């Protein structure tokens, strides 16, 4: 009784003091409300539960890449099987079909690497031109490219196949590489960034010093565009790496497949040949791990770039 009275009195006293200094009182109250231990526990518990959802498939592939085909079906999918065969499974993945998996991986690196670097260079040059020059036709180019952003890539894949087959370049590296060289989104990012980050005075000073127009872009503008460049390269790299319909439409020769199409190919054989379950699982693990590391290392760059991207919305 006595103690409750005392705490009540203490509360009244503090609330009285709060009334006396309303500004600091209200501020500290909301701040402490945000950090109440129970709130922190509830929020963190929700976030952890959601994290489990996002990690389940990745966890599954790590665990099950260590199993034999028998254990894959015979033991619980959330825990290890009777044998630990990770090394053997990975060796099987790398040597299956005469070592076609490493080749798919190299193809993916080639398509994504060359495609993203060149696409970024083209997008930066064009974006810079649209941001820093006033010339007739500028608005038309802008609207044309905006239209390109809004047209879905897969709607273009089929018509592109008709075009490339009339040119006779389907089922070649070019048929996947050439369409990867264009990034309308990258152009917008580069032009927004260039108009903010490349000062006109700098370009004028360069002109007075006798630097040519292409030199201005390469020597003065391009270094200023570095954050945009990193973002466009990453976006384009992932977009090409993840692309499925374009290579599916274009490529017939297994040797030209990127990793996605290759694994799709293996997965399609599982209903006839159960050992392909093991190969597909091991292959999926091998292709997820480097991407996961890349994402975790580079996520701060993505965030910076996404801020730029959201400006245009």
């Amino acid at each position, binding site marked *: 009784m006595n103690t409750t009275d005392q705490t009540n009195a203490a509360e009244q006293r503090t609330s009285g003091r709060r009334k006396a200094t309303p500004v600091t009182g209200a501020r500290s109250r909301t701040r402490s409300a945000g950090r109440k231990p129970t709130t922190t526990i509830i929020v963190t518990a929700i976030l952890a539960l959601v994290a489990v959802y996002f990690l389940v498939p990745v966890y599954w592939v790590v665990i099950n890449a260590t199993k034999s085909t028998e254990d894959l079906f015979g033991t619980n999918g959330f825990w290890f099987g009777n044998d630990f065969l990770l090394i053997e499974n990975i060796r099987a993945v790398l040597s299956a079909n005469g070592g076609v998996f490493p080749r798919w991986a190299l193809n993916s690196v080639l398509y994504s690497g060359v495609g993203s670097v060149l696409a970024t260079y083209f997008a930066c*040059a064009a974006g810079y031109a649209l941001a820093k020059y006033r010339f007739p036709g500028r608005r038309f180019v802008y609207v044309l490219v905006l239209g390109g952003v809004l047209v879905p890539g897969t709607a273009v894949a089929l018509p592109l196949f008709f075009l490339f087959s009339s040119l006779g370049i389907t089922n070649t590296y070019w048929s996947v590489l050439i369409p990867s060289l*264009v990034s309308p989104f990258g152009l917008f990012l580069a032009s927004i960034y260039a108009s903010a980050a490349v000062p006109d005075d700098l370009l004028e000073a360069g002109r007075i010093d006798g630097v040519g127009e292409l030199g201005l872009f390469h020597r003065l503008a391009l270094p200023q565009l570095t954050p945009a460049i990193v973002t466009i390269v990453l976006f384009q790299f992932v977009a090409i790496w993840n692309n499925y319909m374009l290579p599916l439409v274009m490529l017939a020769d297994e040797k030209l497949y990127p990793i996605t199409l290759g694994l799709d190919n293996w997965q399609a054989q599982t209903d006839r040949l159960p050992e392909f379950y093991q190969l597909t699982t091991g292959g999926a693990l091998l292709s997820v791990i480097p991407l996961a590391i890349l994402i975790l290392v580079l996520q701060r760059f993505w965030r910076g770039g996404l801020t730029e991207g959201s400006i245009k919305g």
Partner: protein
Amino acid sequence: MRSKSAPWILLAPFLVVFISTMIVPILMAIGYSFSSIERSGLLGEGGVTRSFAGVENYVAALSNANFIESIGRMILFGIVQVTVMIVAATLLALLLESASAKFPGFFRATYFLPYGIPGVIATILWSYLYIPGLSPIVDVLGLVGINIDFLGPNMVLWSIANIVTWTYTGYNMLIIIAQLKAIPGELYEAAKIDGAGAFKVATSIQLPLIRPALMLTIIFSIIGTLQLFAEPQLLQSMSAGITSEYTPNMSAYAFAFQYNDIGMAAAQAVIIAVSAFALSAIALGISSWTEKRR
């Protein structure tokens, strides 16, 4: 002062690739969509002749029950999936940016991780979590008396929705977080002075100010929904519920490569492209209209 050719030299590489890989194919598709192809000879060995068909292919596409059904399926899918995903992304962004969240960096990276996993591999991984006999989830649910067939005809659309949501929620969340971070600190200070709680801050300050990011994510998601292809195409071999004309894109693919009806395939591709364009334009229009009314 400046050479007139300089901007065009800088634009040239982009425009050459852009025009040849986007504009020309689209024009070609429009051309094909208005033509029909006659094969002479039993196997087409007599060569093909193209003739102007008018709107024949469009009439055929729009009166094809399977194609209309696939569009209806995508609208239903989009309404449910995009809503769930954007609400989830917004809630996660607000929770991660609140003072109460522990380890925000770790959770942010974890949620974003699936974006880096190609749709093909995500679908393979999830399909192994769907297949009875292989899936631990089906086993665990069976133990507590819930028998779900994730690949059943009625369920498989939502199993696909789950894969898409899993892949893109973290990506959309990062776009929203980027905009949340751009809200000036003084606004939060002012709200605190007015005695606003966390909920009031979210509804009165954060949600209105992240509207541009929400619009962006919604438009990207709508375009993505219309493009749905890899996930159902891969699950097709496992689920009796998925036909080869399950989504508009699968339909166009089937007409081009399985039925060899390029006119029809082109008409369907044009309809998909125009719909995506129109939906995005409408979304942008609504966005700027509500912006003006504020």
